[in-house]
C-alpha cells in the first residue's frame, strides 16, 4: 500500500470540499472495498477522508418511505423491523451478501459504490483492463468469465456489478441523495449507474467529490409480497452467479404490478423492465413466467464462460416468481 494522508473532518461540507478539490483524494467509509483495492495496488489515493463519523447514520420512516443514512451499515439496515415486514426482499438480499463481519463494516452508500469483482480489474499485474487503465483492453473477454456479465456489456468491458441489495433497490425505484460542493441532488438508482460502453472506467453519474448522504426506499403497497433468490457456487458467503429480486402485486391470480431486478448478469444492477411489461395484467401461469424470463434475458451477449448464465438466470427468475406468486395465493 502506498503512503496516504488520513484526515477525519467533522462536517459533511468539509469532507465534500476536500475530495472535490483534489482528484487524488478519496472518501473512506467502511473500507471493505477501498482498503482491499489499495492493498492490491489497484487504488492509489494520496489522501483518505474518513467520513465514518459524519452524521449520516440511521434509519427514519416517513410517508411510506424508509430514509437510510448512507453510513448505516448493512447489518443495521437488515435489522430494521419495517424491512422485515414490508420489504422482505431487501432484507434477504442484505443478509445473503458478504459475511456478518463485513456487513458490520460495509455501509449502504459504499455498497452501491462497490467496485467490480473482476479478477483482471483487481490484479494490477494484468495489463489489459479498460476499467483500471482506459484504452488498455479487456483481459476478461479472452479470460475466465464465470463471474462476469451478460447484459449491458460492451466489447471493452464485461465486469459485473456484484451488489445484492442493489437488485431489489433498482426494482423499487430507490432514490440516491448526494451532496456536492454546489449543493444536494437526488438521483433515481435506475439512472445512477452507467453501462461500460466505451468508458468502462466511468461507473456512475457522480462527480468526483459528490457524496451519497441518503438512500430513500419507497415502501411497497401493503400486502405486496417479495422475495430475493441468490444462486451461487457455494451455499453461503459467495457472490451470485445469478439472482432475482421480485415483488408482485396480485389480485386473485392476476398480476397487477410486477417489479423485477436481476443480479449476477448485468454490468449494472439490472432492472428487467420488459419482463415487468410481460407480467403486468397477466395471469399466473408457467407460460407467463417463462415469457417474462425470455423477455428479461433478451439481448444477452455471452462468451464461452458465461453462456450457462442465460438459462440459469431464466430459471432463477421463474423460481422467484413462483415463490412470490405461491405465497400470495
Amino acid at each position, binding site marked *: *500500500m*502506498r*503512503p*496516504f*494522508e*488520513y484526515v*477525519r473532518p467533522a462536517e459533511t461540507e468539509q469532507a465534500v470540499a476536500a475530495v472535490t478539490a483534489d482528484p487524488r483524494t478519496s472518501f*473512506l467509509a467502511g*473500507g*471493505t472495498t477501498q*482498503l*482491499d483495492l489499495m*492493498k*492490491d*495496488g489497484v487504488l492509489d489515493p494520496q489522501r*483518505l477522508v*474518513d467520513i*465514518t463519523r459524519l452524521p449520516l447514520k440511521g434509519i427514519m420512516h416517513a410517508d411510506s418511505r424508509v430514509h437510510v443514512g448512507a453510513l448505516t451499515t448493512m*447489518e443495521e439496515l437488515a435489522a430494521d423491523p419495517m424491512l422485515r415486514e414490508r420489504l422482505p426482499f431487501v432484507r434477504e438480499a442484505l443478509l445473503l451478501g*458478504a*459475511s*456478518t*463481519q*463485513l456487513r*458490520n*463494516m460495509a455501509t449502504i452508500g459504499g455498497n452501491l459504490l462497490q467496485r467490480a469483482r473482476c479478477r483482471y480489474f483487481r*490484479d*494490477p*499485474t494484468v495489463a489489459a483492463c479498460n476499467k483500471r487503465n482506459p484504452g488498455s483492453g479487456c483481459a476478461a473477454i479472452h479470460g475466465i468469465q464465470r463471474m462476469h456479465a451478460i447484459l449491458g456489456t460492451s466489447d471493452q468491458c464485461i465486469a459485473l456489478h456484484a451488489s445484492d441489495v442493489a437488485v431489489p433497490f433498482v426494482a423499487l425505484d430507490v432514490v440516491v441523495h448526494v451532496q456536492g460542493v454546489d449543493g444536494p441532488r437526488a438521483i433515481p438508482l435506475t439512472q445512477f449507474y452507467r453501462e461500460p460502453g466505451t468508458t468502462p472506467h466511468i461507473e456512475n453519474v457522480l462527480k468526483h467529490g459528490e457524496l451519497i448522504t441518503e438512500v430513500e426506499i419507497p415502501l411497497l403497497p401493503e400486502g405486496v409480497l417479495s422475495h430475493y433468490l441468490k444462486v451461487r457456487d457455494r*451455499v*453461503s*458467503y459467495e457472490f451470485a452467479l445469478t439472482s432475482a429480486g421480485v415483488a408482485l402485486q396480485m389480485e386473485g391470480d392476476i398480476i397487477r404490478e410486477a417489479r423485477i431486478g436481476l443480479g449476477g448478469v448485468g454490468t449494472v444492477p439490472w432492472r428487467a423492465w420488459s419482463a415487468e411489461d410481460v407480467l403486468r395484467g397477466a395471469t399466473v401461469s408457467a407460460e407467463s413466467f417463462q415469457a417474462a424470463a425470455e423477455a428479461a434475458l433478451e439481448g444477452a451477449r455471452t462468451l464461452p464462460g458465461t453462456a450457462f448464465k442465460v438459462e440459469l438466470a431464466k430459471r432463477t427468475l421463474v423460481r422467484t416468481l413462483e415463490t412470490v406468486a405461491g405465497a400470495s395465493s
Partner: protein
Amino acid sequence: MKHVDTPTRPGEATSEIPDVEVTLNVNGDPYRMRLDSRVTLLDALRDHLGLTGAKKGCDQGACGACTVLVDGKRIVSCLALAAQYDGREITTLEGLTDDGEPHPLQKAFARHDAFQCGYCTPGQIMSAVSLQAEGRAGTDADICEFMSGNICRCGAYPNIRAAIRDVVSEANDASV
C-alpha cells in the same frame, strides 16, 4: 496473496510518510500510539501491542481469522485502518478470559476438539461470541450461515458447530 508494498513513491523521503495519533481501547485498556496511517487495526494489535490472538490469514477480508469485536460487533480487522477505530472499544481473544478463566466458548472449543491446526480458531471463537450475542445460534442452519465468514481450511466445521451448539443450549437451559 498479492501484496504491493511500496514504502515510498520515487523521490519521496521516508520522513514524509504521514502518520496519525491513535488511541485504541483494547480489552478495557487505552493504548496511545503514533502509527503510519496505513497500519490496519490487525497490524496495530499484533505488531504494536503484541496481541497476537487475531491472526493474519488472507489479509483481504475473506477468511475471518482476524475477527475482533468493535463496540461489541464483529469485524474483520485486516480491512480496518487503525486510525478509523480511534477511541473505540476493541475486544480481542485475549480479552475473553475472565481472571485467567477461559470463556465458555473457549472451553467448548477445547472440549469438542473444534480445530486441527488452530490458526482460524481465535477468529472462529470471536465470531461465535458475537453470534451468540446476535441471537443467531438457534439452529444448525443458522450457525452455518452466520459463521460462514470464518473459513477453516482443516475442515473442523462439524466440531465447531458442536462447540457452539453446546454453549448456546447450556445458556438457554440456564435462562429457563
